C-alpha cells in the first residue's frame, strides 16, 4: 500500500544539508534527469532505478504539478532488474558448457569462456522474460525536512539513498533511536551522553 490509500508501512528519514533557495525550480530539472528509464533486453545492464509518479510505476511523465504538491515533494521510486532463478541459469549454463566442450578436445573450459557463456545465457533469458519491478512511494516534507518512504526493504532503501543523493545533493539519515535522540534533544551534551549509555538490566530480583 502506498501514500494515497490503505494501511501504511513507512521508513522515516531526516534530510541533512541545505535546501536551495527555490527548491521547486532547482529540483524539477534534477528529478527529470533521474526519471526512471525502462530496461531493455539488448542493454548490458542488469538493473536500473529512478523516479516515477507517486503510486504510478508506469507514469514517467513527471510534471511540476505531480511532483510538487503544497509543502511536499511526492514521487514514486522504481527499481527494475533482471533476476532469474539460479537453477534456471545454472541449468542452461551447464547445457551450453557441455556443447562447448563437445566441440573441443579439452576437458574443462577457462574462466573467461565460462563467463562468456554465462553472459550468453543471461542475454537469452532477458529476451524471454520481463524484468521484475519494485516500487515504493516517497514523500518529502520541505518544511519538516523529513522523508517518508513506503517500504522497509533494505535493498530498496539502499538504492533510494543513492538516488536521492544523486538527484538532490542531500543526504538522508534513517530514523533510529540514536538519530531521533539527536534530533529531539540536540546538542553536544546529548550526543556525548547517548554515546556513553549502556543497556539497562531490568531483570527482577526474584
Amino acid at each position: 500500500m502506498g501514500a494515497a490509500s490503505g494501511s501504511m508501512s513507512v521508513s522515516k528519514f531526516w534530510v541533512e544539508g541545505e535546501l536551495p533557495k527555490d527548491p521547486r525550480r532547482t529540483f524539477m530539472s534534477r528529478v527529470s534527469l533521474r526519471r526512471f528509464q525502462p530496461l531493455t533486453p539488448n542493454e548490458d545492464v542488469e538493473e536500473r532505478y529512478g523516479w516515477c509518479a507517486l503510486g504510478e510505476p508506469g507514469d514517467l511523465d513527471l510534471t511540476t504539478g505531480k511532483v510538487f504538491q503544497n509543502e511536499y515533494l511526492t514521487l514514486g521510486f522504481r527499481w527494475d532488474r533482471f533476476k532469474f532463478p539460479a537453477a534456471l541459469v545454472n541449468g542452461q549454463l551447464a547445457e551450453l558448457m557441455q556443447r562447448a566442450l563437445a566441440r573441443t578436445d579439452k576437458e574443462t573450459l577457462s574462466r573467461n569462456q565460462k563467463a562468456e557463456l554465462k553472459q550468453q545465457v543471461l542475454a537469452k533469458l532477458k529476451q524471454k522474460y520481463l524484468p521484475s519491478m519494485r516500487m515504493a512511494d516517497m514523500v518529502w516534507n520541505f518544511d519538516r525536512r523529513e522523508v517518508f518512504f513506503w517500504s522497509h526493504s533494505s535493498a530498496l532503501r539502499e538504492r533510494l539513498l543513492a538516488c536521492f543523493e544523486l538527484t538532490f545533493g542531500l543526504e538522508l539519515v534513517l530514523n533510529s533511536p540514536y538519530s531521533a535522540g539527536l534530533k529531539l534533544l540536540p546538542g553536544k551534551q546529548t550526543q556525548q551522553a547517548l554515546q556513553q549509555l549502556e543497556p539497562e538490566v531490568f531483570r527482577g530480583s526474584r
Partner: protein
Amino acid sequence: MDLVDRIETTRFLGSEFLLWLWFAGDVTGGKHELGDRDVVEVSLESQLKLIDPLSARESISMRGEDPFGSPEADQALKNGKLPAKVFLRVKQGENEWLASLSGPQFALSGIKLPALLNEAADEPLFERLRLLEQFDDMLHELYRQFLTVRLSPSWSSELVPAMKNWVAGSVTLDPAGWTRLHRRPGKRTARR
C-alpha cells in the same frame, strides 16, 4: 566511532522505550501528557515480540488478546528479555491510530490512520499525510520524554528501581510519581 556504529550500539534504547511504554500502561493507564494540554492514551495490545538483548536470535513472539498480561511475557521479562516489537493503539481526542512499532529499528508498519476528517476531500493524500505526521510527532514526543528521563539522574535512582519492582511483580510508582519524574525541565508547579 562513526555514525553507523553509534546507531547500531544504541538500538537497545528502542527496546527500553517500548518497555517504558509498557510500564507506563500499568502506572498511569497509558495516559501521557504531551505539551501543556494534550493528553494521549497509549495501549499495547495483540502483538508482542521479546528478544534477549545479548542474543537477538533468542526471541519469543506472541499474538492474542492480551500478550502483555500473559505468564509467558511475565516470565520472559524476568529472564531479562526486552520488547522488540509491539502493536500499539494511540488515542488523542476523537482520533485513534493503530500500528506495529519495532523498537530497535524505530520502524512503523501496518499503520491505520483515524477516519479521514473530510472523506469527500479532493485531495485525501494531504489529509493522510497530515495524520501520519501527527502520529509520528506524538511518538517522537513520547520518545523525547523517555530519553529526557533516561539521560537524567532520576533514571538510575528512581525509575529503574521502580521498573525492576514491576518486572518482579509489584507496581511501586504511582501516577503522581510518574508525573514528577517526567516533568519538563524548567516547568514548576505554581506556588500557592
